[in-house]
Every structure is written in structure tokens, then in C-alpha cells.
């Protein structure tokens, strides 16, 4: 990560390359219930990221030997469209998306009340239509809204955000340049319950940071997560009110 450090300046005084402050999120747009066939869905833009999430279920599990008599089986598929990045991505799962799917699924599994649905499955599909750093966090945020839209009972909301270290400074919600040329990338996801951050559901990191920088990253991430949480809630309320109005 840090090899290309000298080649591009990321921090200008108290501003970043795109004019944001260190603790400022990119523009976020969230819309719930945008797909007809899915039980729950969500469209989400975060900076230049564009993702769509769909939830199917609880429904019957196929193949049937995957059924669990004590709880629902949760599946999560993070998939990048071939046209979502500069250089065409070969379709289908690569090692990176397998890992992202695993940790994202685990984050959601920890909050979905899966014991309520024995022998059934809840499938979560997230398509990255355009990627610009932080796509896994955008996908989790969308998946979380889609799960609520599908009426899947959860302990709380999952809200995800990354923090990066760029030119020695910890910055919230890195965009592509900060991710590529920065010194570290730390994606987080939190369980938010009763309007408060309760615990960590996803945590990864690569790069190089000190313990104090990690503390700083946590504070930034929690601040960013609360802002995203509000937008997630708004999107769900808006969808609900619309469906009430339309009978």
C-alpha cells in the first residue's frame, strides 16, 4: 500500500483530495424496496460506489442437505459487475470476493434472529455496479436495509464504514485514491441498537498503523456509522410511508 506513497499527495492542509474534511463522508443516497421480485431490496450510492442488494427468504433451502434443523441458513454473495471497475473484471467469484462474502455474511449472521426460521434459508445478494473503494461497506449497508425491507427480524441495524490512513492522517470513508495510495485501510461494521453503537460485527485491516491510530480510527468510524445509520433509517421509513399511502 505505502509503496506508491510519494507519487500522489492526498492531504492538503485540513482538506482531502476531493475537498472533504478528515471526518466527512462521501454523499450517500439510499432507497429501499426498488426491486419487484425480491422480498427486500435496496439501492445505495456512496460516493462513486453504486450497489444493489436483494434479500430472498426466509425460504426453502436448496440443496436440501444444507438445511439446519435449528436455524436459518444465511448466504451472502458479494459480486462485482465486469464493468464496475476501470479494467474489466472477469465475471464470477474471485478470491477477494469469496473473502468479502464470508466476513460480510458473518457480520449479518451475528444479528439476524436465525433461530426463528429453522430449516429455511435467507439469501442476500449484493451486486456492485460501480466500485470506488469501500464497496464492501456500501454493500453491507445496502444489505442491512434490504433485510429490514424483507421483514427479517434482527437484533439491530448493521452499519458499515471504512477508515484509511492517508499521508499519515486518519480519514473517514476513503475514496479510490486514498485506498490505493494510503498507508492503511480498516473496514468496520457495527451493530447499532436503540440508536447506539453496541458492538463490532466486522473488522478487517491491512496496511500499517499504531495502536493510537487504531483508537482514532474507531472514533472516526463510530461517528461515520451514526450518520449512515440515520440515512438507512430514513430510507426504510420513506419506503414504509409510501407503501401505506399506496394502500
Amino acid at each position, binding site marked *: *500500500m*505505502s*509503496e*506508491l506513497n510519494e507519487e500522489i499527495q492526498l492531504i492538503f492542509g485540513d482538506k482531502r483530495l476531493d475537498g472533504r474534511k478528515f471526518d466527512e463522508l462521501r454523499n450517500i443516497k439510499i432507497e429501499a424496496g426498488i426491486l419487484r421480485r425480491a422480498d427486500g431490496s435496496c439501492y445505495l450510492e456512496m460516493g462513486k460506489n453504486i450497489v444493489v442488494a436483494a434479500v430472498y427468504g426466509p425460504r426453502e433451502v436448496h440443496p436440501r442437505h444444507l438445511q439446519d434443523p435449528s436455524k436459518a441458513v444465511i448466504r451472502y454473495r458479494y459480486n462485482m459487475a465486469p464493468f464496475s471497475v476501470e479494467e474489466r473484471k472477469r465475471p464470477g467469484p474471485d*478470491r*477477494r470476493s*469469496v*473473502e468479502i*462474502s*464470508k*466476513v460480510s*455474511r*458473518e*457480520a449479518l*449472521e*451475528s*444479528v439476524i434472529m436465525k433461530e426463528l426460521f429453522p430449516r429455511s434459508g435467507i439469501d442476500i445478494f449484493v451486486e456492485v455496479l460501480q466500485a470506488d473503494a469501500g464497496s464492501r461497506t456500501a454493500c453491507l449497508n445496502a444489505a442491512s436495509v434490504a433485510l429490514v425491507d424483507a421483514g427479517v427480524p434482527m437484533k439491530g441495524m448493521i452499519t458499515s464504514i471504512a477508515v484509511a490512513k492517508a499521508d499519515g492522517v486518519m480519514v473517514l470513508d476513503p475514496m479510490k485514491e486514498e485506498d490505493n495510495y494510503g498507508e492503511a485501510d*480498516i473496514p468496520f461494521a457495527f*451493530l447499532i441498537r436503540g440508536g447506539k453503537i*453496541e*458492538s*463490532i*460485527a*466486522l*473488522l*478487517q*485491516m*491491512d*496496511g*500499517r*498503523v*499504531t*495502536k493510537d491510530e*487504531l*483508537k482514532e480510527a*474507531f472514533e472516526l468510524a463510530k461517528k461515520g456509522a451514526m450518520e449512515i445509520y440515520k440515512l438507512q433509517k430514513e430510507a426504510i421509513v420513506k419506503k414504509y410511508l409510501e407503501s401505506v399511502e399506496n394502500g
Partner: protein
Amino acid sequence: MVEDILVDIKKDYVLSKLKEGERIDGRKFDEFRKIEIQTNIISKAEGSALVKLGNTQVIVGIKMQVGEPFPDTPDKGVIITNAELVPLASPTFEAGPPDEFSIELARVVDRGVRESEAVDLNKLCIEEGEKVWLIFIDIHALDDDGNLLDASSLAAISALLTTTVPAERFEVGDNFPLPVRDLPVSITSLIVNDKFLVDPSRDEVSVGNNFLTITTDQEDNVVAMQKSGSYLLKENRFFEILDTSISKAREIREYLKDI
């Protein structure tokens, strides 16, 4: 079915011991199993190591080739890490393409080596933009008695430390030792209720696959982290684990200094 019942019995035993403040094998919560490192065990490989962590055994072999650099790093060598959880190592492993566990294992080991910049990739350029050294780190599990990840990380850096770049074989100059300048060490903890156990054994893992891996470099910087498993982690617990991981890594790094 028999396996299921055994897992439940083990789980109850592990949990009841933990209530008394003990681990089933008598270790302290922050104590590793016995560590053994043997290097240069595969003479056909450019570097190799067998690591034993208690009964867990992993071999890492390093092979090198001349190849093309990535377009965005035309003057740097390339690291490629792979893990094979072969069926010989556990009754639950199956032959075939890598599943999400082996992919995660390889990627977390890779992150530690890559982000600590342990290998000086600048010294592995042969001809800028044309030819660089490719380093293949292949992780081969032999016996999975828990914590394959830390055993693999330790085996990877040990093998790299003993690697000779086979320049003569590829007719690009004289052989030279692989330039290694840092010693990343990963520490994996099993999170159980309000406690955490480092270097969990397979029996301990019966309580659930809830792990946190933290890799640090020689200066105690964190270079890689991975929370693995469907569980929720409190922030204060995270920082406790971080402190333990930093001090444990320092201890284990001493084993690498003899290589």
C-alpha cells in the same frame, strides 16, 4: 452424529473449565502451545519450513520464478500466497478447489507478509517493466489441531527467511538470499463469552469459530487484522486483545531470530 455429540460434550467441558478460569489443557489464557520450527526441509524448494504448534503441523514451501510485474508496480517483485487444506490434515477437509476457509487463511497470511513489507520487493526487479521475481508462498496443512492460521504465518515467514533466490537456475545472475527486513507475527484469539484464548486448540474451537487475528511487525505496528466468525465484539475487548497480541507477538518473534 457421533461427531455432533462429541462436539457438544467437548463444548460443555471447555465452557465449564473456563468458568473456573482454566483451559482444558492447563494453559494460561495467553499461552501458546509448544512451538517448533524446522527450516530447509524441502531441498527442491527455494525455502521451506515446518511449524508445529502443539499437534498442529503446517509446511510452507517457497518457489520462485521469473515473470512479469504488475503494471502499477513495474519495478517490484510479486508475492502470491496459496493455501491447500488437503484432506490428509483433517476428516473435515475435502479435496477440490479452495473453499472460503482456505482462501481466507491464505489471504490473511499474505496480508501480514505484504503489509509489513517483510520482503524487500524493490530488490526483486530484474528488468523494469519486463522481468521481476515472483514469490509463491504455498501453505500446505498436514495436521489441523487448531489455529492453522498462526502456524501458517509462522511457517511462511520462517520459510522466507531461509529462501535463496535461484538466479543461476534462471540465468539472471548469481543466487542471493531473499531480502527479508521485517518479522510479521500473527496472533489468533478465540473469543468465548467475555474471555479470549490465544492459540486455540481444535477442542477449544468446539465452542464456536469466533476468532480475531492481529498481525504486528517488529515495531509493534498492526499490519493486518481479521475478525472471523459470526459474533459480536465489544470495543473494550478488542483493545484488550490488541494489547495481548502485541506482547505475544514479541515473544514469538524471538523464535524467528534464531533462523
